C-alpha cells in the first residue's frame, strides 16, 4: 500500500469504501500505520546521529583510537584516567559549579519574593532580569573577560575605591578565575531562576494567603507554610537544569572565559573531552572513555535528583 494511499484514506471508512469499492483496511489498522509512519523519520535520524554514535563511543572507550585506526586495549583508558588523577581534578571543577548552585538559588529566591511584592515597576524589573539569560554564554564570557582583564574596568574601579589589593590578574590564579566564572554563571542564571520561581509563585491562589492571614500567620509563617511548599515543582525543575548544566553545559563558558586555564585547573569534563577529541590528535579513545564516565555520572546525578523530588512530593 503506497504511502499516499495510507495518508489520503485517513478519512472515515464508509467514504473510502465508496471510493475504492473494495473492503477497506480497518480504521485502527490504518491509524496504526499512520502513527508508525509519523514517528519513523525521527527514529531514523536518532539511529544514525544518536543511538549509533553513543554505542560507538562505548565501544571506542576500550580502544586506542585516532579516528582512523583502533586497537583494542581493554580497560587501559579507564585505568589511565583514574590512576593519573586527571579525573579528580576534572570532577572537582564540575563540583565547584554544583556547590555554587545553592548561592544563586538563594539569591533567585530572595529576588523572586521581593518581585512578588509587586512594587512599582516590577514588570519592568522582571523583563530586565531575564535579558542576560537570553544572551549566548559566549557573549557573556567574552564580555566579562574584557571587563575583568588586568587593565580593565573592574580593576580600575577597585583601585578607585582604594581596594588595590583586590585588583589582580584574574585569570592567572585558579581561585580568582573561578570567581569570574561563577560571577558569569550567577549573572546569567538569575533571570532564569526568577522567572521560573515567579511563575510558580503566581499560581498560588490568593485565597490561601487570605485564609492564613485570618488565622493570624505573619509574613514569615506564610513564606514557609504556603509559598515554599507550593514551589516544590519549580524549585526541583530549576535545580535539575542547573545541576545537569554543571556537568554537561560548561563548555562555552570555559571556552570563552578561561580556556580551561591556568593549566587545566578550570577544565571540567566536557571541556577535556573537546581538548582530547579535537585538539590533541590520537586521543579519541581516551576522550571516549571520559565521555562514558560523564554519561554514567549524569545518569547517577539525575537518578538521585528524581528520587529526592519523589520524596519531597509525597
Amino acid at each position, binding site marked *: 500500500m503506497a504511502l499516499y494511499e495510507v495518508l489520503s484514506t485517513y*478519512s472515515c471508512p464508509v467514504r473510502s469504501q465508496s471510493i475504492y469499492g473494495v473492503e477497506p483496511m480497518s480504521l*485502527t489498522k490504518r*491509524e*496504526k500505520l*499512520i*502513527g*508508525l509512519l*509519523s*514517528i519513523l*523519520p*525521527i527514529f531514523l*535520524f*536518532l539511529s544514525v*546521529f*544518536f*543511538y549509533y*554514535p553513543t554505542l*560507538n563511543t562505548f565501544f*571506542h572507550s576500550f580502544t586506542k583510537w585516532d*579516528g582512523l585506526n583502533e586497537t583494542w586495549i581493554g580497560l587501559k583508558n579507564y585505568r589511565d584516567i583514574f590512576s593519573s588523577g586527571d579525573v579528580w581534578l576534572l570532577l572537582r571543577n564540575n563540583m565547584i559549579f554544583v556547590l555554587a548552585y545553592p548561592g544563586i538559588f538563594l539569591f533567585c529566591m530572595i529576588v523572586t519574593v521581593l518581585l512578588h511584592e509587586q*512594587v512599582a*515597576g516590577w514588570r519592568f*524589573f522582571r*523583563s530586565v532580569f*531575564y*535579558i542576560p539569560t*537570553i*544572551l*549566548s*554564554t*559566549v*557573549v557573556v564570557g*567574552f*564580555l566579562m573577560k*574584557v571587563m575583568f*582583564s588586568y*587593565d580593565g*574596568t573592574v580593576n*580600575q*574601579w577597585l583601585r578607585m575605591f582604594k581596594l588595590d589589593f583586590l585588583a589582580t590578574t584574574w585569570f592567572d590564579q585558579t581561585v580568582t578565575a573561578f570567581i569570574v566564572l561563577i560571577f558569569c554563571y550567577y*549573572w546569567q542564571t*538569575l533571570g532564569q531562576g526568577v*522567572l*521560573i520561581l515567579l511563575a510558580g509563585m503566581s499560581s498560588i491562589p490568593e485565597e490561601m494567603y487570605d485564609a492564613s492571614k485570618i488565622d493570624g500567620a505573619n*509574613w514569615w509563617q*506564610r513564606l514557609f507554610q504556603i509559598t515554599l511548599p507550593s514551589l516544590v*515543582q519549580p524549585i526541583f*525543575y*530549576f535545580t535539575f537544569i542547573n545541576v545537569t548544566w554543571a*556537568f*554537561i553545559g560548561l*563548555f*562555552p563558558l570555559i571556552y*570563552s572565559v578561561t580556556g580551561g586555564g591556568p593549566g587545566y585547573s578550570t577544565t571540567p569534563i566536557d571541556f577535556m*573531552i573537546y581538548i582530547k*577529541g579535537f585538539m590533541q590528535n590520537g586521543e579519541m579513545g581516551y576522550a571516549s572513555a571520559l*565521555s562514558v564516565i*560523564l*554519561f554514567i555520572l*549524569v545518569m547517577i546525578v539525575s537518578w538521585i535528583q528524581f528520587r529526592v523530588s519523589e520524596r519531597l512530593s509525597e
Partner: protein
Amino acid sequence: MHNSKPFRWIRSFIFLGLLIIAVLDLYPLFYMVYTSMKTSAEFAMNPSSLPKSLYLDNYKALYYRFDVQRLFFNTLFCVVSAMALSLILAIPASFAFAKIRFRLRGFFFMMMIATMTIPGVTFIIPNYLVMSRIGLVDQFLSVIIMWSVTSLPGSVFLLTSLMRGMPDELIEAVKIDGGNYFQLITRVVIPLSMPGIMTVSIFNITGWWNDLLTPLIYLQSDSMKTLTVAVSTILSLHSQDYPLLLAGLVMTATPPILLYIALQGFIRRGLVIGAVKA
C-alpha cells in the same frame, strides 16, 4: 502578599534593591555597546570611560575585514532551516504520540525521552566521523541536522503533552467531513498547537543562535562559520583589540534580545510549561 499593605518605606527598600540588581544586569550591556564605539587607543587610556565621539570604525571593520553580513546570514540560514526540519519532523510525531494508538507507542516514547538524558558531548566524536564519512563536514547541512536531531526529543515531549489536551471531537469532526490526514494536521492540529509550537521554536532558535560547540566542530572554514563561532574564534584569537571584539559581541547579542523583547510572553509561558511538566 502584596495587599498586606506593609509600611511604605519597606516597599521603597524593595524597589531600591530591585533597581540595584537591574543596574547590575544592564550596566555590562551598556558597557559592551559604548565600548564597541571606542578606538583601541581610547580603550587603553581608560577602559571605563564613555566614547568621546560616535566612532563606528569597529563595525566598519567587521563589515569589510570580517564579512560580518555573510556570517550573519550563515547563522540565520542554519537556524531557520533547522527550525523547519525539526517542526516538519516533530509535529506529526507529537500528534501520533498524543492521539493515535499504535503498537509499542509507549516503548518508542521512552526510547525518545531516554535520549534527553544523554549529554551531547558523549557522542560528538563518532558523530563527527559519521558526518565526515557522508561528506557533510563543512556543510551547513551537518549543523542543521545536528541541531534538529538534538532538539527533537525535547520538542516532541513538550508538544505531545500539549496535544494530549486537544479535544477528540474536533479530530473526529474532520474525519467525518472526509478530511484526510494532511488536512487534519494543517487545519486542526497546527492551528490548535500554535502556542506550543511558538514556544518550542523560540527556545530552539535562541539556543541555536547562541550555540558554540556544534558549529565550532562541524563548520571549519572561516566563510562557513556562524556568528557566535566566528566571534569566539577569529575575533578573539586574532586580535587583542577589545573594542572590536565587543562590536562583534554586540552583533551576536542583538538578535536574541530583539526576539526576547518582541516575544517575552511566549518565553515566560514556556518556562512555566517546563516547570509544571518536569
